[in-house]
């Protein structure tokens, strides 16, 4: 199809988690690709499965989770069938991960530098302390930590939130991975700090050529940093588009409503386009389209309540999980 092979290719990924009331399906046929060196945004509300998608790729799931996937293609391997032991050589080496809350994602009793050294030395068994530390300092400098050599000897509590998040990014980069999964990397940070951290991530992409999956609920962050967007709702992908396509010509009522519901998209004081109701519980998904109960599209009809739409291409080649993917275009036009 395209010239470049995707670095990550999810095909029909399903996830079930064990709850006190039995297994609950959290991800439903999640399918998307990530090209080498691109920044892809994944948006959705809490509970839409965007974080679980990243954890499924890394297989960092709670005990007794069940994964069923046609394929989780990564850099020539299928992670869906990789053994746990082999997967450990992928985690941290070929795929780095950045988590949401930098205040809790570092071990509080170990020096920051040591924790990054550890990430390097796990995958380079013969390497000495000095060499690992040199690599650590190099990465800390790349993500913009001043006085990196000295600060590496401090403990996490001596670092601010923004600095800690840079440390986590440095840790994810230390083995020169092909892909970084960043799960709400700036949600816990202030606006001015968020900008600094996202810049650091973008610089890593520019200098190391690493692809980034940027999971966020903030469409502004997507607009600024991602070239393509995956929109998730109730455990499934509802739309895949380039960022410009999504903002200007969305093909799914949920993505369209999400973009319209932001205050920035309206004139001051004018009522916002609100999405009524709340996302469905995963234990209690409607039979048809999961978004149907909240959908305000003029095309909504009986089929939305009875049949669940698949993620398919529209006539003009856009990916949307809406029965009326070909009609929205006309509305906008």
């Amino acid at each position, binding site marked *: 199809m395209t010239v470049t092979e995707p670095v990550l290719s999810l095909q029909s990924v399903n996830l079930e988690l064990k709850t006190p009331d039995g297994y609950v399906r959290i991800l439903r046929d999640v399918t998307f690709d990530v090209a080498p060196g691109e920044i892809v945004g994944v948006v959705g509300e809490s509970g839409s499965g965007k974080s679980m998608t990243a954890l499924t790729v890394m297989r960092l799931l709670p005990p007794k989770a069940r994964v069923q996937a046609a394929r989780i293609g990564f850099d020539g391997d299928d992670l869906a069938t990789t053994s746990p032991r082999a997967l450990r050589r992928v985690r941290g080496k070929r795929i780095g991960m950045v988590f949401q809350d930098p205040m809790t994602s570092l071990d509080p009793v170990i020096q920051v530098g040591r924790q990054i050294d550890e990430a390097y030395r796990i995958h380079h068994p013969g390497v000495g302390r000095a060499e690992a530390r040199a690599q650590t300092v190099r990465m800390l400098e790349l993500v913009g930590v001043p006085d990196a050599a000295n600060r590496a000897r401090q403990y996490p509590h001596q670092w601010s939130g923004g600095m800690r998040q840079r440390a986590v990014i440095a840790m994810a980069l230390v083995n020169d991975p092909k892909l970084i999964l960043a799960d709400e990397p700036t949600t816990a940070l202030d606006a001015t700090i968020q900008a600094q951290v996202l810049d650091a991530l973008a610089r890593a992409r520019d200098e190391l050529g690493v692809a980034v999956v940027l999971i966020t609920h903030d469409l502004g962050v997507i607009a600024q940093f991602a070239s393509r967007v995956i929109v998730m709702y109730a455990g499934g992908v509802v739309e895949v588009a380039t960022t410009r396509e999504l903002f200007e010509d969305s093909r799914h009522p949920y993505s369209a409503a999400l973009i319209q519901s932001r205050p920035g998209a309206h004139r001051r004081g004018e*009522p*916002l386009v*609100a999405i*009524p109701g*709340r996302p*469905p*519980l995963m*234990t*209690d998904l409607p039979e048809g389209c999961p978004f149907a109960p909240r959908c305000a599209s003029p095309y909504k009809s009986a089929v939305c309540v009875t049949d669940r739409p698949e993620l398919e291409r529209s006539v003009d080649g856009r990916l949307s999980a809406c029965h009326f993917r070909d009609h929205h275009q006309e509305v906008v036009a």
Partner: protein
Amino acid sequence: MTGTTERTRPMRPSLTRRRELVPPGRLAFRRFLRNPAAVVGAVVLILIVLAVVVGPLFVPWDPDVGELIDARQPPSAEHWLGTDLIGRDELARILAGGRVSLTIGFLAALLAVTVGTVVGTLAGWFGGVADAIISRIIDILLSVPAVLVIIVFAGILGPSLPMLIIVFSALLWPQSARIARSVVLSVREQEFVQAARVLGSRTRYIVLHHLIPGVLPSVIVAATILVADAVLSEAAVSFLGAGVQPPQASWGNMLNDSKSLTVLTLMPWLWLPPGLAIFATVLSTMAVGDGVRDAIDTRRNA
């Protein structure tokens, strides 16, 4: 305007299970009933309490007086659990001793939990210097072994029942105080308490409707642990001779005689029953406490 559009379209929370409509208190009780260990513990505990309260009415023997002729008899139809070294009926003594042991245990725990809850609540609620001092006292007292203190007091002043209860509660209250303090601290941090202030609620209302319902469950759990602790400590102290004094029986001092090798080897009916009685009481109390704690664990409430 938009407010009205939404009013005409009320949102209903999807209630998948009926039990979500049940008040939290009743939910907790149901969870307790689903915990077999806790239920068995509760039943055993009730049986033990019933036995020592009404049991003596049905046993014809005086627990404190015996005939030497009857001494050292193994269990028989007449003396179900046999007789001790001076001919007292062992069953009568177990029941009477149980009254003493449980009275001390429950009374000391009740006193300790009351004092501890009040002190801990005040420390947590008001904070500041008073809290710092109280916390320090709690820290130190927590590591003071009650048994050793009783030995010192009994060694100097002579053993007595009121002293037992006072020293136990004096050394056990910090446990419940610490728990009450930490719960109050976390409840106080909860915004609904601050909200109540802005909403104009008076302190009395806040304490009655927000604070006490928040603290009570943890205090109940703390109380069960204290009962177990007090019963165990009383037994140890009486066993050492610093607690309940003969001829009055207690589960602890009934084992005192059994330190002798002859009793230990030849008369197991003298030491097995009181030992098992203590064990069963403590174990069932702990099981009930664990059950209550699991049942009120709010993390499972969501």
